[in-house]
């Protein structure tokens, strides 16, 4: 008599990763666009775990992209598919560098990818920078986009003139949000407290200041077009800043030419004289001091040094002339760049360039450690740039796997080990399905306010909903 004994191993959704022959395991530090795009490509070859400090994923797509650019956030749909992939496991609420070290991750995984972006900002390095009324664009954007650490920013919007230092897309986003009619914003996912503050804002004039000239401006044409088309707002530029520009147009490469032509059009046409609000670029000016009022308690103006340009094109340099100019203003926003910071002493870091030194995404002198996104290349570029960069790193990592540069013969425990370790430290992760509960709660709150979503501003509130 034969009897057949069948042993069945059942793997439910909660027991991923317990099988003994597990295959390659990679983890990614950072749940923003770089992390998700890198994961998307890696998932074809390996299991991927994403560690993110906040309970919520998506990084700058959630906290950086302007509320009136919802189509740019459509990429969240792609990231959501990645997050829901059976071989992908998201762990929010885990602070890598504090709750768990890079070395501990490297022991648990065959490879680790650093995609933690740039959470710091470049400082102007001028006296008065710390005065009330002066903000980094990173913090101001974080404030209207609901970044928990910026919820107490309370910017004072009761002054007529705001000055923004820097002329990239972030600077233009800030200018546009300051001047946009509330009707344009009230159905977006801008935070309710920012919406109310902007509704009561007395800011009527925004100057966007750059060190160099119109041909070096860093913003892209879409953002410039949006400024030109702002309702009830006119452009206020200095014709002197544009001397020689018309002549230079014909030799410019097409994207730069179109951008410059649109700017020239705004200079020429100016806009509706009856407009209550105005904005303008101010070129060849560098900030040298934030001026305080008589009581010295807050910013009331900014002192700018006038520059002249040496050289031309993208590599033109600003040189001091010695002339100065004071501008009265009550709100100063410095938008001169984000900056990465070191995450862990075990990871090489280049303090001058503020990136993790690497060769095509392979971290210098550290086998099995990779990087993608802003922490790899520096904090510039749009989502498309980060996407291509992340795909490059993923490709390099897979090549290394296939070339035997990563020892895949050793089994690595992956999230199982890290979760156990975190538990001993009192840290509990938020899984992707738990983020989806936070997501649903935000959409529900938004609905009652006529908005796309009302973001939760408090991490503890997020955790309570996630683990409910």
């Amino acid at each position, binding site marked *: 008599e034969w009897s057949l004994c069948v042993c069945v191993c059942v793997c439910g959704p909660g027991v991923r990763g317990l099988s003994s022959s597990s295959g390659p395991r990679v983890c990614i530090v950072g749940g923003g666009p770089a992390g998700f795009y890198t994961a998307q490509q890696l998932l074809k070859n390996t299991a991927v775990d994403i560690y993110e400090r906040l309970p919520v994923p998506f990084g700058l797509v959630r906290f950086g992209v302007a509320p009136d650019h919802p189509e740019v956030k*459509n990429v969240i749909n792609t990231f959501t598919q990645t997050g829901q992939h059976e071989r992908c496991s998201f762990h929010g609420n885990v602070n890598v560098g504090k709750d768990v070290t890079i070395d501990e991750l490297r022991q648990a995984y065959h490879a680790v990818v650093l995609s933690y972006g740039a959470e710091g900002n470049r400082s102007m390095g001028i006296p008065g920078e710390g005065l009330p009324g002066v903000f980094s664009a990173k913090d101001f954007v974080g404030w209207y986009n609901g970044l928990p650490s910026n919820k107490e920013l309370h910017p004072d919007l009761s002054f007529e003139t705001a000055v923004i230092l820097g002329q990239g897309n972030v600077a233009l986003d800030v200018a546009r949000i300051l001047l946009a009619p509330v009707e344009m914003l009230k159905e977006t996912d801008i935070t309710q407290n920012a919406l109310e503050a902007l509704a009561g804002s007395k800011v009527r004039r925004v100057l966007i200041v750059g060190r160099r000239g119109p041909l070096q401006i860093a913003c892209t044409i879409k953002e410039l077009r949006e400024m030109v088309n702002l309702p009830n707002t006119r452009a206020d530029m200095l014709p002197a800043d544009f001397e020689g520009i018309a002549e230079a147009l014909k030799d410019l490469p097409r994207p730069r030419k179109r951008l410059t032509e649109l700017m020239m059009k705004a200079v020429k046409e100016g806009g509706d004289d009856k407009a209550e609000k105005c904005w303008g670029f101010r070129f060849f000016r560098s900030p040298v001091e934030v001026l305080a009022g008589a009581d010295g308690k807050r910013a009331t103006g900014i002192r700018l040094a006038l520059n002249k340009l040496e050289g031309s094109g993208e590599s033109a340099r600003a040189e001091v002339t010695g002339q100065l100019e004071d501008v009265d203003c009550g709100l100063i926003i410095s938008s001169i760049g984000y900056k990465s910071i070191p995450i862990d002493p075990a990871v090489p870091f280049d303090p001058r360039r503020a990136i993790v030194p690497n060769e095509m995404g392979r971290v210098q002198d550290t086998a099995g450690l990779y990087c993608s996104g802003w922490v790899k290349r520096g904090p510039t570029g749009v989502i498309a740039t980060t996407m291509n960069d992340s795909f490059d790193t993923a490709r390099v990592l897979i090549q290394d796997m296939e070339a035997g540069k990563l020892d895949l013969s050793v089994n690595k425990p992956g999230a199982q080990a890290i979760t156990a370790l975190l538990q001993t430290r009192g840290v509990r992760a938020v899984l992707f399905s738990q983020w989806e509960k936070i997501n649903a709660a935000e959409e529900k709150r938004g609905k009652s306010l006529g908005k796309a979503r009302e973001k939760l501003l408090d991490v503890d509130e997020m955790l309570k909903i996630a683990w409910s």
Partner: protein
Amino acid sequence: MAASAAVRSAVSLTQRFVRVSPDCSICPLYRLNACTGAIDGFTAPNRRLRTSIGVCQSADSSSPEEDERVVNVVFIDRSGQRIPVEARVGDNALHLAHKHGIELEGACEASLACSTCHVYVSSKHYEKLPEPEER
């Protein structure tokens, strides 16, 4: 320009099979020595039409008006594989690619908001397009 902008050029079809030499010099795969496509003797699987770039042998049954709206598009993926598909004037090029399982990223899902999908148009065809408008 965004790939999601409509495919505007129509290719007229003849009953006679015409062999046309494609302009490989504008193709990035050719320039990178990565082209693996063999033009001669190429067959489109599961299709009634034998295709070469831009040319189609029309079936007897389709009417001339219908033919004018058909555009033959060949996608060449990064491995050099040629994927011919049939499209219509007005089709969205990104959606067309996705419909045929071709990997093309479009982060903003064809809202013209992000530049992850984009096309390079050869200068001689570019000249035929209308001037871009700032809107």
